[in-house]
């Protein structure tokens, strides 16, 4: 499979609202790219533009070497000629057709030989572990089973490009976990380039090879999950990703390789930083201790929230509040004195005005 997806300067408006704002994006062959963002950020619209279900106002889209959309040239191939499959959020299985008919509808339109159709149906059902369900109607299956059939229907097309629009959002938490693993496996087996839309950051982080974070129609950052998590390009991405939320501390860079947060200083490389900055630090990157430590800052445990595998501690120092994550069940009790120690390489520095990351690392 060698299908590169190239999106150039794509813009889509609905009346006054700019749903997709001048988006340019290249997706490598075989990548699993997730479009991630809050609801209304334009991620679904971008996916629908690629699918050919929306007509953008500007830009170009190439799937492989095929130009499927170009505003300037007036080209827009219908969805059926773009060699892609789409799994809808509500599955969109045709309720008046059996599983078999649902899966063969497209294949019959392509006028494939009977034997080939049969082979593909069986293979696709096997891939989603739904053998023997050919004669069921969608309403006779559970949500999870319908979800698998929707995937199988797409697999049976054998498209070069998989599109998935929040396919797991209608499933319960347990099933969602199982399906994440299944979809990731399917992607590996089929190897097709995949664009996956979700507002769930855990889904994005766990499944993708690349994440594109969107906000109000604009791409914020396109990177590997690791980079998006550890080096968010701006405060929006930093704040959107991670649970518990990242700590954002406003301070002043004083030019001595440290940031003054009022009550204490943090050693950060402030080379090329403006005076007003924000220090961002993930809760799990802070070490916590009940013993005084000269290199640590003294806080009070405002609240302790153990959840089995780890515990979240909300620490306070007057008006500064910091969330810390500690592995295991914490020994700390509420109102205990605690010492927080920051690790300079884990600190990211942002410009308070523009919100952008300063001193990007590699």
């Amino acid at each position, binding site marked *: 499979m060698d299908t590169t997806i190239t999106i150039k300067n794509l813009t889509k408006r*609905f*009346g006054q609202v700019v749903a997709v704002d001048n988006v340019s994006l290249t997706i490598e062959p075989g990548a699993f790219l997730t479009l991630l963002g809050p609801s209304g950020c334009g991620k679904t619209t971008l996916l629908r533009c690629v*699918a*050919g*279900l929306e*007509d953008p106002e500007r830009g170009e889209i190439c799937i492989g070497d095929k130009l499927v959309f*170009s*505003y*300037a*040239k*007036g*080209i*827009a191939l*219908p*969805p*059926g*000629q773009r060699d*892609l*499959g*789409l799994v*809808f*959020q*509500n599955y*969109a*299985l*045709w*309720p*008046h057709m059996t599983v078999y008919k649902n899966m063969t*509808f*497209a294949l019959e*339109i*392509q006028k494939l030989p009977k034997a080939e159709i049969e082979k593909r149906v069986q293979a696709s059902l096997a891939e989603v572990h739904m053998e023997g369900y050919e004669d069921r109607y969608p309403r006779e299956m559970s949500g999870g089973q319908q979800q698998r059939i929707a995937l199988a229907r797409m697999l049976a*097309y054998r498209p070069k490009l998989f599109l998935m629009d929040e396919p797991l959002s209608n499933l319960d938490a347990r099933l969602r976990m199982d399906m994440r693993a299944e979809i990731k496996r399917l992607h590996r087996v089929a190897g097709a380039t995949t664009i996956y839309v979700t507002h769930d950051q855990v889904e994005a982080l766990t499944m993708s090879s690349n994440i594109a974070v969107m906000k109000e129609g604009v791409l914020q950052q396109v990177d590997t999950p690791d980079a998006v998590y550890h080096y968010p390009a701006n405060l929006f991405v930093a704040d959107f990703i991670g649970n518990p939320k990242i700590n954002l501390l406003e301070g002043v860079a004083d030019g001595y390789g440290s940031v003054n947060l009022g009550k204490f200083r943090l050693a950060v490389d402030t080379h090329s930083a403006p005076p007003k900055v924000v220090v961002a630090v993930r809760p799990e990157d802070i070490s916590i201790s009940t013993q005084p430590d000269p290199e640590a800052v003294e806080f009070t445990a405002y609240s302790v929230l153990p959840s089995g595998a780890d515990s979240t501690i909300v620490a306070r120092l007057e008006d500064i509040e910091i969330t810390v994550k500690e592995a295991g069940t914490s020994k700390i009790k509420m109102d205990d004195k605690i010492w927080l120690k920051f690790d300079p390489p884990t600190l990211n520095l942002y410009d308070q005005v523009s919100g952008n990351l300063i001193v990007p690392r590699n």
Partner: protein
Amino acid sequence: MTVPAVVQQPLSLHTLATFRRFIRWLTSAQVALALIMLVLMFYMIIIPLYRMVETTVTWQAHDLTRVPDAVVGELTIFHYVRMLTGVFGRIYMYTPLQHSMTVAIGATLLSLLIGGSLAWLVVRTDMPGRKLVNQLAVIPYIMPSWTLAQAWLVLFKNRLSGGTPGVFEFLVGHSPPNWLSYGPVPIIICAALHYYTFFFLFVSAALMSIDSNLEEAGELMGASRWRILRKITFPLVLPAILSGFIMTFSKVMGTFGGPNILGTPVRYYVVATMIRGSMGVGDKADSFVLAIVLILFSVITISLNQRLIGTRKSYETIGGRGFVAQVSKLGKKKYALRTAVIIFQILVIVLPLGLLILSTVMLRDGNYSFSNLSLQHWIGARNTIYNHGEPGVLRNPKIYKTAWNSIRLSLWTAFFTALLGVLLGYAIVKGRGTRLSKLVEQLAYIPYVIPGIAFGAVYIAMFIKPLGPIPALYGTFALLVVVSVAKHIPYSSRSGVSAMMQVGRELEEAGQIAGANVWQRFRCLIFPLTSAGFVAGFLLTFITTMRELSLIILLVTPQTQVLASQTMFYIENGDGQMANVVILILISIVALANFIIGRFRGGSLKQGLGM
């Protein structure tokens, strides 16, 4: 050497791209369909309306007898002056208008009283037998609207016309007074007993959808039962009442049968009968002026009503969700009340039918002896003494042809209406938010505000002469189909929209992804997915077309006669008993179709109401 050729190149590329984009827009399913629908509705609604107005403001050949120096075709306000001022204005316009208003307001208020109380009893009380009452309540609407008027005459006829005594006179011994036999009182009662169904269905749906928590909240705060009814329940039901008001009022304004049977014999004319009257003497322009006034009245009433409710579509928003309603305890009165309600319903359904049957088995009208019983009007041979020499209905080839016309008309109308519903629904729903979709939706709404008889008048103006690719349709069977389909457009588009909304856009988009073209998507996805609504819409339209009279009375010819109009011609010919046989046959066909509807899930009478 002024402009380098290189500049020309991107310019033509740009034009080509714009052209491609335009073609793509034009050939996208919803745009193409919306444009086709626009053209269709333009032909079926806008042009006829325009032609009608045009006729009223130009000199007609007919006018030469009154104004010899008129130039046919020139602009004039002659018809308006003639119909709106002086003695003519009084006779042709103001008196009938006053009568129409009296009848419409009277019938609407009486309908509200009957329909509203029945709805409350059925939905909100513990009265026994509520289910039966609920089922019986819609039956009067299934029967043709003028059935009750005919039955009324059998009962309350006096010696004023026809000279034979009615059943009342036979039983009581003296002739009923004129006000009881003819005129506004019987017209109002008969119309109300037919049209109360609107109020019944709207109000009961509204009562069902009210969350009784709202009322309980009032009760908890210590409000009395009556106060809750007045302050909480009534305001919540008000939109339903107003919707019922427009439906009933505009229907009664445009109705022809009842006023013609009960009003015309005593020269109590309403606008609807006056339109037919002046059309009958060839004064097209005059009757068009009347029709325009009727349309304006209807438009004003409806827009006033919408102003009050706030939105055009409020009548669609009622109903649907059922809450566990709190039920009022009627106490000991409940059995007495049930008996009274059931007796009322039997009086409204069984008594009229009984009277009609009685009248058809009497050889001579008004002779109530056993020896007078006969099946002459049903199966009798041709006899010059009876019915102007026509044989009994079941032996009468003319009636068979008429019945076939009725069935044919209803089938074609039902088919095209249901088909148009799906297509309109698609064009409107898929294009939601675009100006084109809004335009289609608004155009589709127009026939709703045009009373039945006026709509028929509009069509006379249109199809007398050929127009573009459309031949002169006057006097053809096709014209009846076209007018019936056109009148149904508001209802078909409404049900088409709700059917498409239920299908949802993803199911069709999944088809697009699968590579299906427009035709494959319609054939394999959209039609099958909307088929339940299609069948229900088909059968409901069949029924409403079957018993439609006001719409087609101006357009039928001896060749295209249908059962509904045939009854009216028999009545006007003095062969009331023959008419009653035909009415009974008509009711049987409609009842059969209604029975079939009951077998189909998803088909409710409410959807078909007002068609």
